[in-house]
């Protein structure tokens, strides 16, 4: 049996940036796209409901200062809102990340592929994505702005993680 591999990059049929239009037609188009993606096999696409549920769970768990016992800050509400927006913008071909909160209160996503094959981002409150990754002995880190779409650098790193 041959398994089909859907590329992560945003120029594939499973990554349709939505929510840009404000007209009635744009709204209907969003609904159609969402329905189409829901109909796809869950093994192929990211289960966004589960992801959003995870984000809500960490919000509950980390909503007070010192939630970890080591003086971590409570989850930053703006970061939480941005994390939801980020999760909704993620290409549906990307595997489910693991969610946690950093000691500064920012929501963090982590994708793990194996020892020394890991990529993580933290969502800041001011349209800022802080990222870092290990790809074997290669390492990356940096900061990107997050406006309408997920920055290309982030998608490229996820592509590197899952397709090499």
């Amino acid at each position: 049996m041959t398994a089909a591999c859907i590329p992560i990059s945003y120029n594939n049929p499973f990554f349709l940036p939505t929510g840009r239009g404000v007209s009635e037609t744009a709204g209907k188009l969003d609904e159609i796209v969402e329905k189409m993606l829901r109909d796809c096999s869950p093994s192929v696409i990211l289960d966004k409901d589960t992801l959003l549920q995870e984000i809500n769970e960490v919000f509950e768990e980390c909503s007070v200062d010192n939630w970890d016992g080591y003086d971590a800050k409570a989850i930053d509400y703006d970061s939480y809102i941005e994390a939801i927006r980020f999760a909704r913008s993620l290409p549906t071909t990307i595997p489910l990340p693991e969610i946690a909160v950093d000691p500064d209160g920012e929501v963090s996503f982590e994708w793990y592929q194996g020892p020394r094959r890991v990529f993580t981002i933290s969502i800041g409150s001011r349209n800022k994505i802080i990222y870092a990754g290990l790809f074997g002995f290669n390492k990356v880190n940096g900061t990107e702005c997050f406006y309408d779409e997920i920055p290309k650098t982030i998608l490229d790193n996820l592509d590197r993680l899952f397709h090499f």
Partner: protein
Amino acid sequence: MMKFLKRFWIILIDYFTSKFGNALIKAVSKDEFLARYLTSSRWFSRENNRVKHHAFMPPSNMKLSVFRIDNLTESQIWKIGQKRVANRMRTRRNLYGRADVKALNVFETGLEIHHDNIPPRHADIVNWPDEKSERKEIALELAANASLKLRP
């Protein structure tokens, strides 16, 4: 009051030094193991038997709390975790496990280990970079080199 506290502090230090020996006030050697006690279930993965980088992200004071665990039995190591970490927290926390990492792996990232010995065997990993993205990368590196020990 301050004078009294200072004197009391010196007596305490003397007591612990005599009790635990000089080995613990020596600089941390690169072959030593350090334990980071895990107080959140989101800091490790049972499925992959691994520590996540979140366990090594420093708090706002940029001091990552660890304990020196060389020459201790497993039960003594867990006792320290319960007594010195879990029981001392302002809010009740579970002690899920620990991440053991070699001091060499810490030094290789450019970080330093400040052994204050307060409480005994305690140390802080310090000298974190200003940029959060760099701190994340270092935390990933430490997690990749750490071994997960779940609480029995």
